[in-house]
Each structure stands twice: as C-alpha cells, then as structure tokens.
C-alpha cells in the first residue's frame, strides 16, 4: 500500500480549499506546471511532462477531487506521483512536506465513503487534510487510459 500510514513524512497537495496528504515515498518530484506540454496526449490526460525517466501524463482535479478538463490558473505545481504502472502528474496549487509526528490519522467514517472515492482517511493536527494514495488518485483520473510505457516502479 502506498498510503501515508507508514511513512515518516507526508506531502500535502493543495487543490483550492482541499488538502490531500500522501506518503512522501510516492511523490517523486515537484515540477512547474509551466513545464507541462498541454494538449500533447489524448484525453483524459491534459498534457505530459518529461523527466529523465520518461514522459508522463498529467491530470488536474477540482476541490471535490473530480477530474478537470481545463486547468485553473492556481494549479502552478505538477506533483509527479509513482504507482506500480509508472509515474503520472497531478496539478496542484501548493505542496508542502510535513513530518508525520504529532499528526493523528483516522479512517474515513463509513457514512462518508462514496463509491470510488480516493479518500482513505482523515488527518488532524496541522489543520485537516484527506489521506489518499497515488494508486487511488490514479484510478480517479483514469491513468490507465493515457499512461505511457512504464518507467520507474514504486518503491516498496
């Protein structure tokens, strides 16, 4: 599992008012949205970003974690996330690294679990954030539909 429960460091990605926490292990790099080549790949990806390891599809999410077809101006960072299938980029407003110490993680209450939600839990301590994983986000943006040949594999 690539969720943040076992990681000493978390990365908080901001999507408007919504903050998502992921294990730092799966956040391979933070790039500038200006480096994304928009329109260069078929939907559902919005564009692609090149690294030394390959060229990866890029997606955007709104505050409700639904895929976007247009990129809000505030999404100035591209977080490159790792799954078993390769890397993909998610555009966000801000990103910050956070020590896990002093934060409390809770499972998402049953009454709040919608089918297909990428939210795996709730993090309290430095404000409130939603816990998720690269794998869950990959499903939401449908990475498989636009993924380039696999590059790096996720560390385990």
């Amino acid at each position, binding site marked *: 599992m690539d969720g943040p429960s076992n990681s000493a460091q978390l990365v908080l990605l901001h999507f408007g008012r919504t903050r998502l926490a992921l294990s730092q292990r799966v956040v391979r790099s933070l790039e500038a949205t200006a480096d994304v080549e928009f329109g260069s790949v078929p939907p559902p990806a919005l564009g692609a970003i090149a690294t030394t390891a390959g060229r990866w599809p890029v997606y955007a999410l709104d505050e409700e974690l639904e895929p976007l077809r247009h990129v809000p101006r505030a999404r100035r960072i591209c977080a490159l996330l790792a799954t078993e299938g390769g890397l993909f980029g998610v555009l966000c407003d801000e990103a910050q690294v956070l020590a896990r110490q002093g934060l409390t993680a809770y499972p998402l209450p*049953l009454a709040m679990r*919608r089918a297909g939600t990428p939210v795996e839990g709730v993090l309290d301590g430095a404000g409130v954030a939603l816990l998720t994983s690269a794998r869950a986000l990959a499903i939401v943006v449908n990475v498989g539909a636009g993924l380039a040949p696999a590059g790096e594999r996720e560390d385990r």
Partner: protein
Amino acid sequence: MSRAAGWLLALGNHRAAVGVREQVHLMLDPAAAELAATPAHCRHVIFWNERCVPVMDLGRWLDASAGLGPAEQRRHLGIYAYQQNAQAQVEFGALWLARPPQRIEVDDTAAAPLPHARARWARVAAACFADALGAVPILALSRIFSGALAD
C-alpha cells in the same frame, strides 16, 4: 403500559427522536471540518474524545432534492452512541440540529405508522410514535451511520 424517555430532535424541517441514553453530548456552537469528496448529507467531521466523528445532515438526506437548507438548520450538534449489535463496540455519530434537543417521555400507546410523505424514513427509523404535532420517527442510529446512506 410502559414509558420510555428520549430526546426530540429538530433535523432541518423534520422531527425525530432517539433514546435518552443514545445522546451522549451536545455541542451548541460546534467547529466541524468540511471534507471534500463526501456525500452531500455527510460533509463534516468533528474531532471528539480522540475520535473522528461523522456529522450527518439527516434533514438534507430526507429532502435530497431540496439542496442545502439555511445555516440555522445546522446550528447545533448532537453526538450519539450506537452499536451494530450487542457484542459490537460502541461507536459514535453526530447529527446537525436546528434546535437543542427536548427531553420527552413516550408511552407505548403513542405508537404510530411512519410518515407516508417521506418513504426514506423507513431506511432510517426503527419505530414511530405520534404526539400532538404529528408523527415522530425513532432513529435507527446504527443504520444511519453504517454507510448505507453514503451514495
């Protein structure tokens, strides 16, 4: 004839009741955190006694087509204890309330059918009684917070 004590709750424009021991805490001016990607009727949590407690807007769920009601309908929070079965551990859920709960006593001669106008009551009520203002469903809290209403 047997009598039972309970709390009368104002859930948006609806009334309902719970057993007197089911209500464990009342927050008159709560600070609830809103979470993205959650159902419209259950958007908030509170952190209470080292737990993350979901806050249900049952009035909104009952009136699903009406959208979000005025903020006065979500002024207070009641926290309720429930068990999925007698052997299960006690769990907690919260309900938005328009007014502080009112202590009531009900006897079994007041039993009544659920309101016909809202078929959804059957999914969240264990029983029903009537008072001078009409039917008052008695909430089945374990059903409400089990996830059965999530989608």
